């Protein structure tokens, strides 16, 4: 069979999500953010909420998410996405509101907003892209940086006496009565991509059904900040990150 007989519209089984704008994304080659964007775009379209979905983009590499996924967006100040999402969700309850935040945004400067929005049980989805580093600003240590991990501000590796322990913020959020669904996923293999999509779908459904706050952590790579090839970064993540941040559901209710 010739290629042109296979590559026909009726045989198409996978295409780029329609909600993903066909503009060039600024992310580094191989960055996890791109994969997660695709999944968010697919889930919003499949749930039929394109006109009701409101994203709140962070400060961090994903600051321009509003240029890539074609729904409504608000850009929040650094760490304040959960507070902005609270307003967007309360003032217009028809909205299905989600935040998209990095680990610096969500678990450093925005810790208070994160914890209080989840504790109030706001009907929002919090998508937490944990790449254990401040990607955007050049690879500084984040609260989530692993012990021993080298970053621009921990050039000899993170030390517990100097820098404290890595913060598992998702484990804290699980304990709060306001959260209805807390899960930790990754997007480094086809199977994990599928699982993350299912998790996002569940989280958005919870927001539609006003069940409370859903948190979807995606343990991710920042190959530029980690100074590895995309492929090596995925391997390093599987070897080191999953030990501290094990994948799976932390809370289902």
């Amino acid at each position, binding site marked *: 069979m010739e290629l042109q007989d296979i590559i026909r519209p009726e045989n*198409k089984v996978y295409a780029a999500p329609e909600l993903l704008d066909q503009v*060039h*994304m600024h992310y580094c080659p191989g*960055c996890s953010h791109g994969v997660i964007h695709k999944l968010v775009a697919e889930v919003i379209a499949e749930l039929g909420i394109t006109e009701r979905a409101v994203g709140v983009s962070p400060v961090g590499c994903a600051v321009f998410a509003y240029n890539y996924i074609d729904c409504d967006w608000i850009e929040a100040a650094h760490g304040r996405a959960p507070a902005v999402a609270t307003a967007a969700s309360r003032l217009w309850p028809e909205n299905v509101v989600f935040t998209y935040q990095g680990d610096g945004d969500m678990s450093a400067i925005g810790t208070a907003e994160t914890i209080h929005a989840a504790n109030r049980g706001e009907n929002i989805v919090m998508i937490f892209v944990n790449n254990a580093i401040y990607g955007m600003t050049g690879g500084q240590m984040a609260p989530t940086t692993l012990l021993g991990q080298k970053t621009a501000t921990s050039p000899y590796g993170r030390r517990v006496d100097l820098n404290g322990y890595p913060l598992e913020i998702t484990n804290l959020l699980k304990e709060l009565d306001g959260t209805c669904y807390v899960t930790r996923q990754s997007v480094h293999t086809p199977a994990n991509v599928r699982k993350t999509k299912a998790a996002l779908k569940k989280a958005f459904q919870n927001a539609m059904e006003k069940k409370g706050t859903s948190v979807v952590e995606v343990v991710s790579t920042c190959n530029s900040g980690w100074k590895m090839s995309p492929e090596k970064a995925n391997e390093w993540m599987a070897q080191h990150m999953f030990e501290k941040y094990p994948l799976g559901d932390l809370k289902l209710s």
Partner: protein
Amino acid sequence: MAKIKGAVTVNKERCKGCNLCVVACPTDTLSLQPLEVNDRGYHFAYMSNPDACIGCCSCALVCPDACIEVYRVKLD
């Protein structure tokens, strides 16, 4: 038994040559162009071994830049 035959297209200008699709492909269908680059200077992915493709979508799922479309037919 029905045999599956697949094929992919790569949006070569969108591709950043990250190699993740090449790693994810279970049949070694894909490679990065060894010499040729796109307008942004990336060695883009292509089917170097098109006969091997089974249309499993692994490459497309892991592609961060949504470059890949997958096609599949059943042969009787």
